[in-house]
């Protein structure tokens, strides 16, 4: 009891949640009332996680702290249904339910609902996302397509990073970390309130470290490696204009350097973002107007230095309302303009505009039974400005093309009893080709040409799933299980089509490659006792069958059956003893096939053997505001090959956090 009170007191000191009226969702106050996390990532309306019509995992700030990790992918890596692999110190990759690719274009990552996707490659540059671990309230992981709410690229799933709200919460913290690989890392978060109606949260962070040892990496893949670093800054302000109107303005910037030796691509990226949002409680419902601009500068520093700039402007409008006692609706419109230019496009610009309209209907059929249906139609128009290189055989009219995409999410949630919940879901989502896939035109020395394909079709992902959750009330434990079947039609890959001869040049062109089916099972058990003891264990199984068109060479973009580990077991144990926290998490996964680029041979297969890895963290609260942490990542091995790249070295991290 004393421990509980102390913890509660600490939380009150560091993070006082202000009950306030909200046009935006006041996560803290709602969670306080309903005694469980609240999410909007399933349907766009606030819901208790236990009632969301999707398969969702929530990582809380407590989970983040206890992981001892210094980056988001490391926090998430032991979650059931997620595949994790690291190419180099600053290049972790996450995928949901397999289909991992370098620059994973199937996963949509958001910060408070704003995509932080790098649109040119279709990639998540984790280190450049302008958010610090200390300012995160929760990370919501939706498994399965959710395009009917979020549009293109919510194909395998969505990760929404929800930060503390500057208007309702006070998050103030400074964290310093050091450790092996000459790690030097720091972050700061501060919140300022001006009266009761204005709140501003500022955050900044940066890190620098040595790259992992490259002894086992072929020399041609280890040329010109960069010193891993990142730096980010963000400011988020919110103003309660009237009791019914709220306005927010946010700006951020990030920069990072990473290595990807498997494909000879050291990379130096920069991003800037600005977002403004107006939310109002009106007679027709909760109206939300949201605009953001994301700018990315991508500097590819491989054998051929290339640069691209991508600018995405996005405007969204939505209205959330209730009709009668048991029906909620959300209607939405979105317009996005995305253009890219630079050396990847030989100085030209390719772009697309998308217009989207969609709706969601949530019907509480009976006590404990709800049905949610969401539908969205996207129309995309592709275009090109500048000169199409004559050697490509294409003309500007090749880019005068459009496509339509109809996505849906449907979910029935049935609380069979107080302890049993069943979810049945069907979804159709889309993975959009990136601007690089669609429009790159790069003459490569030696008479070859890397070429985009404007006629490339998006991958259509169809997912059917049945989930069953059981709460063991007396044991304080929960069982979560899922069975799913997924079909991916129209898979495509960067430079992945059948090479062909065009004049003197051999052309490597993006292409649709075929289809693939996946069947999977996930089972997870989790428990936390009042005595401070906690544990979890989970198992996931996935089997994939590829139907790749004839003539397509096996490679990183076309061999999903082999490149997804079939079996993964995650486990964790922890104990809180007064001011101490002890936690360990681990994973065993079966072997999979990866590919390493070779200039002469193309993609060379490399088998990544099955392995077990485990992290441990000890935290000590010196005072209510000061805590120390010691984390050892990869306890079991000094070096571990997680993909056909640089072996990951063991890391030891020492941290100090001051909250005020």
């Amino acid at each position: 009891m004393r421990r509980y009170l102390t913890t509660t007191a600490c939380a009150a000191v560091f993070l006082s949640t202000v009950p306030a009226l909200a046009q935006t969702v006041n996560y803290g106050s709602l969670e306080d009332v309903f005694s469980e996390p609240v999410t909007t990532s399933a349907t766009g309306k606030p819901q208790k996680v236990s009632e969301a019509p999707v398969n969702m995992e929530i990582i809380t700030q407590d989970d983040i702290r206890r992981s001892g990790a210094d980056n988001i992918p490391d926090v998430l890596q032991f979650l059931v249904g997620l595949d994790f692999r690291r190419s180099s110190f600053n290049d972790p990759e996450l995928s949901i339910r397999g289909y991992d690719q370098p620059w994973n274009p199937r996963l949509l990552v958001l910060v408070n609902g704003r995509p932080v996707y790098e649109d040119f490659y279709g990639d998540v540059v984790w280190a450049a996302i302008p958010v610090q671990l200390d300012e995160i309230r929760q990370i919501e992981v939706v498994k399965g397509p959710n395009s009917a709410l979020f549009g293109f690229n919510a194909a395998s799933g969505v990760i929404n990073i929800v930060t503390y709200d500057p208007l309702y919460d006070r998050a103030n913290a400074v964290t310093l970390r050091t450790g092996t690989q000459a790690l030097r890392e720091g972050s700061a978060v501060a919140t300022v309130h001006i009266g009761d109606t204005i709140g501003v949260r500022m955050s900044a962070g940066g890190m620098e470290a040595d790259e992992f040892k490259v002894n086992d990496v072929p020399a041609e893949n280890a040329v010109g490696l960069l010193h891993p670093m990142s730096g980010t800054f963000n400011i988020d302000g919110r103003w309660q204009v009237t009791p019914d109107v709220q306005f927010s303005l946010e700006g951020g910037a990030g920069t990072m350097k990473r290595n990807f030796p498997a494909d000879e691509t050291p990379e130096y990226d920069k991003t800037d973002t600005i977002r403004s949002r107006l939310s109002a409680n009106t007679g027709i419902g909760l109206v939300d107007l949201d605009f953001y601009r994301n700018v990315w500068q991508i500097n590819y520093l491989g054998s051929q230095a290339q640069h691209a700039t991508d600018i995405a402007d996005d405007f969204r409008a939505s209205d959330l309302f209730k009709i009668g006692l048991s029906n909620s609706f959300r209607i939405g419109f979105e317009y996005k303009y995305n253009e890219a230019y630079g050396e990847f496009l030989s100085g030209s610009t390719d772009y697309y505009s998308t217009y989207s309209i969609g709706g969601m209907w949530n019907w509480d059929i009976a006590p404990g039974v709800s049905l949610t249906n969401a539908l969205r139609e996207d129309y995309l128009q592709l275009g090109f400005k500048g000169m199409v290189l004559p050697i490509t055989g294409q003309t500007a009219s090749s880019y005068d093309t459009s496509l339509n995409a109809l996505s849906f999410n449907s979910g029935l949630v049935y609380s069979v009893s107080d302890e049993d919940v069943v979810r049945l879901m069907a979804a159709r989502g889309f993975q959009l080709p990136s601007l690089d896939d669609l429009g790159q035109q790069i003459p490569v020395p030696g008479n070859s040409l890397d070429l985009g394909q404007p006629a490339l079709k998006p991958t259509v992902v169809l997912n059917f799933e049945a989930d069953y959750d059981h709460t063991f009330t007396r044991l304080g434990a929960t069982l979560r299980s899922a069975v799913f079947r997924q079909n991916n039609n129209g898979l495509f890959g960067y430079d992945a089509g059948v090479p062909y001869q065009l004049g003197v040049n051999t052309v490597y062109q993006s292409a649709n490659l075929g289809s693939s089916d996946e069947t999977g099972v996930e089972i997870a058990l989790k428990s936390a006792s009042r005595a401070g003891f906690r544990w979890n264990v989970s198992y996931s199984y996935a089997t994939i069958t590829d139907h790749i068109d004839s003539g397509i060479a096996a490679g990183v973009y076309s061999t999903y059956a082999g490149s997804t580990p079939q079996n993964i077991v995650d486990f964790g144990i922890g104990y809180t003893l007064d001011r101490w926290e002890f936690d360990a998490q681990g994973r065993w996964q079966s072997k999979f096939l990866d590919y390493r680029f070779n200039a002469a041979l193309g993609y060379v297969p490399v088998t990544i053997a099955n392995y077990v890895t485990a992290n441990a963290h000890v935290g000590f609260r010196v005072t209510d505001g000061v805590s120390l942490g010691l984390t050892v990542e990869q306890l079991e091995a000094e070096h571990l090959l997680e993909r056909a790249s640089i072996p990951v070295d063991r890391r030891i991290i020492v941290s100090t956090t001051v909250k005020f």
Partner: protein
Amino acid sequence: MMRTLLAFVTLVFMAGLAGSAEASAPANVDPKWVLIVAKALDFVTRKPVPPAKVIVVGDAADLAVARSSFGKMEVAAGTVGDAAGAFAIIVNTPEEARAAHAANANVAIIGNNEPCVEVGACLIAVETQPKVSIYVSRAAALAAGIEFDPNFKMMITEK
């Protein structure tokens, strides 16, 4: 032997009767639901003008629970007839809820009884096990002039 068995059965039966009599007696309010109700009322869009008053129909223990939960409001003990001008009245039984509703149509009546919400007599009821569920009567809210935050309304069951 038979007499001993009969005596034992009689004792068990009497103990059962005593237990059921105890169960039907008015119980004290559950601190957990009172706390959740107090937090839920923070989502009222037009806050009551201080000093807003909450009347508790119950004993000293109920009063103490309400005072610790409704920290910002003036909490006093009273009867169902004392709630005129109060923001809310907390009752323990459906009978008290019905009586309070008859006496004070424009006061938020808080009785932890879902059927009471169903018929529009009580404003709010809360289930705390195994998950928190909140039931709100639209009719009672309208009568009391109470409107809830729209995001909060998306997460409750309206009757």
